[in-house]
């Protein structure tokens, strides 16, 4: 996988999201810094006959997240995402580590506050911060070794990184359920956000060749191995019933 190509795709992503006015300024800065982190990685070095990729990390911190503007479908909702990726991968999966979180914020008191449910402290804190709160948080992670879960999984809730700022009502202690999911990257996550929260802009972007090309390249980078496994498994199922697709993806 070429990091330079990925950085270039992030540039196009930034340009597209900017030109459709979908990114808050914080989000633009987050994406710019993500690009710079990839640019900072030295190019692959030749060792013998092989090109060896340098270790890399890509982090969008939660406090300076990739923040979108309020949804054009429902302006009470404002999505953001933050993430951590590292590489190179030592197997066929696209990266070594993956932790990507999508949060949905709201500052509409009718949505973010529930008088009967919230404690006095939470209600006061909400009032002080003009009702800004995370309504829902979705983690798209790659399990670490020994973690009993699908290798790539999705979890609603999960452990918050910024509990005090988010004030999310989902209990942080729950580690399950973790649904099997495909690997995820920033571009595909942005596509999901745009498709859900900005449907009009999404319909315009879908006709944009550059946007299509960026998403297709991200799919190839991120999903190829996963799709191959699904495809092979479904065409040649384990007829002795010893393994299901879920077990095939289970972290061992």
């Amino acid at each position, binding site marked *: 996988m070429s990091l330079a190509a990925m*950085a*270039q795709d992030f*540039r196009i992503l930034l*340009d597209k999201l*900017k*030109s459709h006015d979908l990114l808050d*300024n*914080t989000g*633009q*800065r987050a994406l*710019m*810094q993500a*690009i*710079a*982190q990839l*640019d*900072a990685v030295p190019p692959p070095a030749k060792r013998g006959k092989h090109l060896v990729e340098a270790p890399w*990390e890509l*982090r*969008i*911190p939660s*406090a*300076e997240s990739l923040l979108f503007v309020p949804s054009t479908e429902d302006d009470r909702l404002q999505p953001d995402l933050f993430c951590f990726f590292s590489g190179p991968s030592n197997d066929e999966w696209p990266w070594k580590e993956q932790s990507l979180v999508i949060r949905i914020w709201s500052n509409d008191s009718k949505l973010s506050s529930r008088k009967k449910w919230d404690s006095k402290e939470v209600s006061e804190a909400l009032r002080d911060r*003009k009702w800004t709160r995370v309504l829902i948080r979705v983690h798209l992670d790659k399990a670490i070794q020994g973690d009993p879960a699908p290798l790539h999984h999705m979890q609603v809730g999960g452990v918050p990184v910024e509990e005090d700022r988010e004030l999310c009502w989902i209990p942080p202690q729950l580690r399950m359920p973790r649904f099997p999911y495909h690997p995820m990257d920033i571009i595909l996550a942005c596509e999901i956000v745009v498709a859900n929260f900005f449907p009009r802009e999404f319909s315009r972007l879908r006709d944009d060749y550059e946007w299509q090309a960026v998403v297709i390249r991200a799919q190839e980078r991120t999903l190829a191995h996963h799709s191959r496994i699904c495809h092979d498994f479904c065409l040649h199922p384990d007829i002795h019933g010893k393994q299901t697709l879920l077990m095939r993806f289970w972290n061992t």
Partner: protein
Amino acid sequence: MFGNYTAQGIGLVMREIRAVYVEDDEGEGQKYSRLLSTKKLRVKPVMAPSVLSNEPILKENPDLVLIDYELTQKQRSGNMATYRGGTLATSIREERSSIPLILVTRRALLEKYSGAPGQLEPFDISIFKDEIRSNRARIAGQLVALASGYLALKKAAPLTWTRIMVMLRASRPDIELLKQCRPDSELPKARATGKVKWAIPTVVRWILDPLFRYPGILYDQMYAATALGISCDSLSKTELQRVLSRAEYQGVFSDLGKRWWRSELLAEAFRVVKKAGMEAPLARSFAPALWKVHRIKAERAVCLQSGETYADTVCFVLRKPVMYRYTLAYFPDDRPKVMDQARVSFKARGSSDFDRDFLSLESRKAR
């Protein structure tokens, strides 16, 4: 692709610059010519001819022409020009487009002419007489930089997109960004044939505004320092400039002031941060990483709002670092979308330069 160009390679000029200063007041002409003349710049006063003519000016074969706007005063010889500086500038530009034209005037008068912006159109920049008196070395330096840039572009002409990119010494990723705000083509015939070429003044105008004017593709010292979370003084340190040297803008007009390619600046800074084993955000981690890796002490940028030693944004109105969370989106100009959005600090609301109308609707409601 463009990494190996030297100063000579992009045609930067090392010789003395010849300038003429067109005036209707002989005393003023001599005074300001003397004030502006340096080792690198020789300014010769020329009296405005009574009938519009480029001949007395162009026969000096100047690299730069300074023109006083109000030329219609009766001269000691009894002559009196029947035109203003804007008309003369247009006439010179028609005949010789590769010479920079500088408007020299007084502040109050520029305000008076602003109602007819077309008259000021041919000028590349304007300078005020009081500025020349108070800061002549800086102004002379700017004039030399402008004339050298013009000469370099003239040498590179015809200016195709590739040639312009060579002159800017832009890297591939930056070229992609530059395409998003490229100058308008004024040559419809060339456009029709598919090979667009730009006139020198068009390219100059594009480089000065929007490229140099708005932060986004390039950063000036203030924006660069703040993006790294450090003070401007710290960024001026020679040892730090050495660390970041790959990001320094060294293209045409680089003598007009230090600038940095944003993408390369951030990448260089992240290399330092990564070596130090630290992580994003850059504005927080760069200074300690710099100390850890290079033993270079950099003062942190100070937030103008809270006084904390952390700032990552520049307040558009106060031109000082501020923490992003103490800012609002501000729309004071028509900058291209590829450029960074302007931000204004809460503190700037007390400033006479602040205009509430330039806030977004949400910001106006919220604050």
